[in-house]
């Protein structure tokens, strides 16, 4: 395999509060290789979005990245200067956020905003930048791009806006795109259009994608590898088929069984009881312990350390045996 494009080791991001510093991201290790799609899956509050923001050093007070290495092409982004980070963001690393209405400036035309992203990183004329922007728009399936460039965000529908955000991310042909729930707010037919563009992009230009989502089904269809997050840590990671067909961590198994697709219509869904722990009241040992069906006495005492099995890494004292994935 090729050298990793992005390697994250022991990333820890805390949020400072009056009564202490609470870890939203609690020792995350991640590897994204060139041209690969890594799906980062987790429920609300699992720390998946904070992980994405931490990678590009976009955490503001009261949040703080307090430990870990973020190696992008071998360069540690935690040590990089503000200027260096600005030259990387939007150029080598692009981000796509969940809500395009919040990330597009409502008082600037689409063309203005897209040109800005090009001129910030490249030495070219405004006209060249506009041409590049028009090309990027037609690439994500927006018709008559020249007219569209003159329009403002409110003249676009939600799906169109998200396509503009994706086109902007593509402008400088980044090496890595970090996409945080980019299709969650969209209808399935629009989601399918966007996933089609993303797939094509990753195949044609070798862009690596970190796709952050709560939707295991999207990850199943899109990703090469999957990382499952729970309570600030990655509990299981590996190739998509291995993880979904033979999950090792009971939480992954629970997530799969909760989805209606895995069971006959009308039967009771296999639910995970309880709810994810709040950041300030995580249990000792394994954080999934109170909801786990396979809990052992040792789970309360000892935090399970990452174990490697082939291409997979998991953190569990009592992993699901092979063939019990139903």
């Amino acid at each position, binding site marked *: 395999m090729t050298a990793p494009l992005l390697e994250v080791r022991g990333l820890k991001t805390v949020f400072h509060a009056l009564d202490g510093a609470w870890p939203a991201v609690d020792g995350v290790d991640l590897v994204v290789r060139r041209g690969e799609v890594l799906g980062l899956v987790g429920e609300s509050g699992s720390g998946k979005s904070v992980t994405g923001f931490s990678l590009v050093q976009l955490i503001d007070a009261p949040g703080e990245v307090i430990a870990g290495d973020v190696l992008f092409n071998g360069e540690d982004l935690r040590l990089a200067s503000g200027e260096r980070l600005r030259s990387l963001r939007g150029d080598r690393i692009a981000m796509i956020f969940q809500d395009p209405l919040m990330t597009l400036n409502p008082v600037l035309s689409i063309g203005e905003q897209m040109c800005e992203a090009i001129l910030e990183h490249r030495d070219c004329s405004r006209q060249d930048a506009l041409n590049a922007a028009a090309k990027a728009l037609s690439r994500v399936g927006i018709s008559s791009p020249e007219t569209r460039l003159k329009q403002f965000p409110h003249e676009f529908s939600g799906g169109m806006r998200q396509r503009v955000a994706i086109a902007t991310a593509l402008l400088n042909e980044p090496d890595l795109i970090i996409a945080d729930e980019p299709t969650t707010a969209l209808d*399935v037919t629009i989601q*399918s259009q966007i996933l089609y563009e993303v797939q094509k992009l990753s195949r044609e230009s070798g862009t690596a994608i970190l796709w952050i989502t709560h939707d295991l089904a999207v990850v199943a269809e899109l990703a090469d590898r999957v990382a499952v997050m729970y309570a600030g840590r990655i509990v299981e990671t590996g190739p998509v088929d291995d993880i*979904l067909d033979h999950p090792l961590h009971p939480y992954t198994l629970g997530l799969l069984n909760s989805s209606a697709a895995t069971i006959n219509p*009308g039967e009771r869904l296999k639910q995970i009881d309880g709810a994810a722990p709040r950041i300030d009241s995580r249990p000792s040992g394994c954080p999934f312990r109170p909801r786990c069906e396979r809990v052992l006495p040792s789970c309360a005492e000892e935090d399970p350390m990452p174990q490697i099995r082939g291409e997979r890494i998991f953190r569990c004292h009592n992993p699901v045996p092979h063939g019990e994935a139903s």
Partner: protein
Amino acid sequence: MTEPFFELRGVKKHYRGKSTFAERILAAAGRGAPPRTLRAVDGVDLTVTRGEVLGLVGESGCGKSTLARIATGILKPSSGEVVYDRQPVAALKGKERLDFLLKVQMIFQDPYASLNPRMRVSRIVGEALSVHRLLPKNEIDAAVDKALTEVGLDLAYRDRYPHQFSGGQRQRIGIARALVVKPDFLVCDEPVSALDVSIQAQVINLFMDVRERYGLTYLFVSHDLGIVRHISDRVAIMYLGRIVEIGSAAAIFAEPAHPYSAALIKASPSATRRKHQFQPLTGELPSPLAPPSGCPFHPRCDRAMSVCREVRPVLTEIAPGRSAACHLHTSPESA
């Protein structure tokens, strides 16, 4: 048990756009365009039989939530009839109308917006009982406790406020509030969309448990085909204010008759498909202010024929219990 229990007959809900000053002057001069009308629901006939779960599916803006609100009596249809237990709802008065409003309860999408933040849980759940004097004062507490237990909430929480609960728990409070007045018919508008996957499963299971316990009938509105397939006996698929296909859930998911149903099913992700080659449906939902001529789906349809651009297909029975509004199934050209 197959008596029609709840019926919508030719229900329409149209909204008039406000005309601008210039438009009003032109209209006064006799040169104005006709006022713009948004046809949110444009002629829906729907029958729900007692004890069934009818799933209602469609994309944002197709009118499914408007239809749900008409069904519960929150909105009045512009034309058409809502019939409950063989009685037209519009004609109900006084006690009979109140009975209808209590027998048909709604579960809302957003468990944050649908609970009064300044009321304790016990009062939220018990309010209808005391306002309508359904029970003597001294029996209300017991009824509230029973409803809370039923939905799996700890009675220690009965005096808390909504903000002290998670999304899943709030949705349980909403269900308890509906159950406490002993309804027959629950209209659920995207009741689990705002919840995490593991919590969704808990709430879906709860819906199925209370249905069995009380023999409830559901109109279950959702954009999530996976959930609709799981919970529904029959499914209706809506596009631009009309039903384009209706039939048993098993039949529609196995072999959708309308190209739009097929596209929706194909676009909806599933954990059982891997490294899927996405094939986009072209275009977007057209504006309901300016729906396309003929079949409203024709600009996005890969099987559109010339007739589709001119003639709007009507919902026609294509097999027992199965109807579709598509020329592929009615026109002689389709052979």
